[in-house]
């Protein structure tokens, strides 16, 4: 039944408007790129302001005159002007490629995020599989950066990032798998539509918690920011980076927040589905609102909790999250079969 609905609705609006293969491809790529470049800006600005006010500060106030709205644009201009320094001992090619390898997977994620029944770039039947696979590639960029920098701090940070990814990828995938089992489809649009009657956050509340915690760790966001722990290893794998290359890493981080918030909204909060009774508000506003709310939550956690130690971080994943996720899957399977 769900398959039938997807077949009807799951056509991108771009395909409706244009018919040349290349035209469709270019427009989709352009739109994805625009969203990728603008959404992280909004989240970045939100982080500046929310973090500041949570610490009783004001945050940026001058750039753009009104409450520093243009701060991140000014930052971007500054990053472009900076000298591009490559350490003499660095592995130049790997060093130069690493920021792109870290950033591009997140651009790819944006291609499958649905903002409405037809409002997306691509409807993949294996959507969630693609999302989880692509988001894991990013850590290779971090590893490349850490190794190529020829710097002890960078290497420690990169290896921590890799260890963290291995530890938290598992609960992330297991939590997503439980949702996939309940929805009966891997397609993100299918999952969103399957939540027409009830958001999965209610039956899958444990899975939602596991997914959010693992996303934080995946993004190396506080309190799981051991790989970049600035008070002990400077800035981890990014220590040697300057200018535009550094900006790419930052863009990857904020793009990652948006992407994983979007995935979590689709999996657990009904994606672009409205709250019953409020369906006059269009789907993409619901989706953006949910992404914004989850991003706010991620920033909120950063302002609140101190960083976990490396051993606490590993133990938490292997002894708490993974068993919990396995039990969650078992229960989901049981209820799916029994009812």
């Amino acid at each position, binding site marked *: 039944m769900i398959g039938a609905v997807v077949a009807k609705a799951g056509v991108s609006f771009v395909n409706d408007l244009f018919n040349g293969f290349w035209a469709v491809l270019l427009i989709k790529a352009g739109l994805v790129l625009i969203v990728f470049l603008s959404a992280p800006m909004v989240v970045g600005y939100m982080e500046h302001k*929310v973090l*500041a*006010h*949570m*610490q*009783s*500060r*004001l945050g940026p*106030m001058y750039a753009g005159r009104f409450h520093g709205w243009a701060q991140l644009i000014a930052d971007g201009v500054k990053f472009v002007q900076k000298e591009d320094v490559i350490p003499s001992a660095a592995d130049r090619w790997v060093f130069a490629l690493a920021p792109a390898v870290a950033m591009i997977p997140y651009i790819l994620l944006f291609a499958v995020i649905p903002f409405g029944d037809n409002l997306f770039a691509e409807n993949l039947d294996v959507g969630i599989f693609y999302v989880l696979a692509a988001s894991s590639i990013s850590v290779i960029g971090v590893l490349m950066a850490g190794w190529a920098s020829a710097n002890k701090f960078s290497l420690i940070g990169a290896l921590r990032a890799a260890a963290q990814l291995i530890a938290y990828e598992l609960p992330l995938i297991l939590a997503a798998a439980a949702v996939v089992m309940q929805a009966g489809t891997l397609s993100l649009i299918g999952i969103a539509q399957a939540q027409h009657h009830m958001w999965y956050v209610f039956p899958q509340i444990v899975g939602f918690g596991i997914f959010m915690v693992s996303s934080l760790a995946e993004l190396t966001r506080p309190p799981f920011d051991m790989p970049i722990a600035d008070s002990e290893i400077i800035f981890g794998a990014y220590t040697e980076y300057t200018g535009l290359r550094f900006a790419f890493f930052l863009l990857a981080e904020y793009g990652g927040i948006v992407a994983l918030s979007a995935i979590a909204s689709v999996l657990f909060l009904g994606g672009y589905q409205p709250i019953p009774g409020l369906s006059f508000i269009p789907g993409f506003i619901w989706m953006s609102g949910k992404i914004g709310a989850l991003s706010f939550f991620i920033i*909120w*956690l950063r*302002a*609140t*909790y101190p960083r*976990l130690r490396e051993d*606490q971080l590993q*133990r*938490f994943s292997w002894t*708490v999250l993974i068993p919990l996720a396995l039990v969650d899957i078992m229960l989901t399977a049981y209820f799916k079969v029994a009812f």
Partner: protein
Amino acid sequence: MAAGTRDVRTQDGQPNGPPGLGLIKGLLVTLKHLMRRSVTQQYPEEQPDLPPRTRGVIALKEANCTVCYKCSRECPDWCIYIDAHKETHEPASGGRARSVKVLDRFAIDYALCMYCGICVEVCPFDALFWSPEFEYSEYDILKLTHEKEKLEEWTYKVLPPPPLEVGAEPPEEPAPVAVPTAPAASPAPVATAAAPEAAPAEAPAATPARERPPEVELDQETHDRVLAEELAKGTDRRVAEGKARRAAMIEARKKAGGG
């Protein structure tokens, strides 16, 4: 969350309650700060609200200076320059000639000064004061050496010290008033008597006649009432306790004074 079976207790010695409660409390703390007005004072547009004892700049009350060189000798940075010469005066009433040191130059090099305040502490005749004024940066480093005329000007910016908190011990004064002998005859009381009128900073302390308030117990009833009122208003517990103690002290004094 990783605490395991360890018995973690809060500062009150109470058990922590259900696991995860601390995490939620932490989230509420940050959320509360998000809702409050931020405390930032946007300096160039808005003058900062500095406490009267801020270490901004050191002012010199030249009339009080006896050229004892204590400040310049104690200065860790050697940033105080003092030049003086001796003059002898024949007293009109006769007797041997008295020699007096006259200050020629007193300068503080704020490019060297580290604002430790030792000179203000050691000055025996209250000639040096802190002022909260801080906007005296210069493009030329030589201009950061303030001569005594400029240092004198800073005394106009010296603020009186903040009033004592209610319930605080009154400052221990050497109390020249306690000595019943004729004050004008001996030279020592002249110096101390000159200090209060020369130093605006000494204003509240210059009334040593103020009676020491009677020793009283806190008025428990008022304390509990005010505390409950403040807590109901949603005041921070620490602030509420302070206000309650203040009210209880005032009430107790009133009772002790009245009865």
